[in-house]
């Protein structure tokens, strides 16, 4: 039976991970270095569309339960 040392094991697992940032992130950083600004596509991908919002509804049912337990 092959004895796997801890270091070797973690190296094997690390080898399965992608190396470095994704190509589009590298491209974004390269563009930023050259121009001092981010491309609209990159910002939309990273931060989202400023015309959109994130909406979360409170769960009214949860409050009913907590009140009922008092």
């Amino acid at each position, binding site marked *: 039976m092959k004895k796997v040392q801890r270091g070797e094991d973690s190296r094997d697992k690390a080898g399965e991970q992608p190396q470095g940032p994704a190509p589009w992130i590298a491209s974004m950083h390269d563009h930023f270095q050259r121009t001092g600004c981010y*491309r*609209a596509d990159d910002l939309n991908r*990273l*931060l989202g569309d400023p015309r*959109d919002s994130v909406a979360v509804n409170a769960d009214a049912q949860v409050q009913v339960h907590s009140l009922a337990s008092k």
Partner: protein
Amino acid sequence: MLGADSTSSMFVPSGTGAGLFHYFNHNQKLFEVGENSTLGMVTWGLGGLGPVSHRTLIANLDDDMRATPAIPVRNVQDVATRWAGIFWKAYSAQLPVIAPDWAPLLAKSPFVAGAQAPSPQTRTKDEEDRFQALSRDLVVGFCIGGYVLPQRVTTAFTVVFHPNLTAEPIPIVMPMFQCQWFGVPNLILRLINGYDISIVQSLMSSGKWKGTELELRGILDKFQLAHPVLPIRDAIDFVYTSIYSTIKAMKFSTLSQVCGGPIELAVITSDRRFRWVRHKSWDSAIGEDKT
């Protein structure tokens, strides 16, 4: 509950086509509409209209409501509609001054990669990049909340302006018990949902997901953080924490710090007028050098 960060981002061109972002961390994004008011407003996106500040226009809104009582302001929707008209007039007038290349770029058709002998009426790659940047940079939104006496019914409306509009936008009501985040939506979306829009798009286009987008979202949405209807002080904490988390996400992602500075919070409860929860003092920028 209204809340905002305080960072204002400015692009400083170098003259060679390049440039850099510069940040001021003590800008005002949250306003009381008038004084001793039952209305507040928060803004995101474009920080001003050249010589005309949002602050001035919001004061104009208050002046306008007082000067023309014959035009009824029965509720927050009436206020938001009046604001849409006032801001649209300023926005559409200032757009050619702020971005003189917007209209010529809009008049052209979109860039087509690899097109043979492209028409002069088609945007070049550089023009397309500029067009897309302006489409994003010229967006400005407002959320107006509170109540209008004699009715103590608290409501909020959002109004979003962007350069593709041809007329003032219609205010959109925010449902009761709903929390909305604007400006940098993806980061809070990741925190609340555990994923953002780009991740869904990437999975769909990877070819490794065999179901529909609806089915994918159905699985992912099961992990959404849910919260009950919060007591008011906990709601204040929730809004503060959301803004704080976004600021820190920007910081530790090594992206430009487009969100930061003091967090400002205000509350309008149905029994009281506009109240500041956290409001930076006029010397807050001077205090930056404190250790």
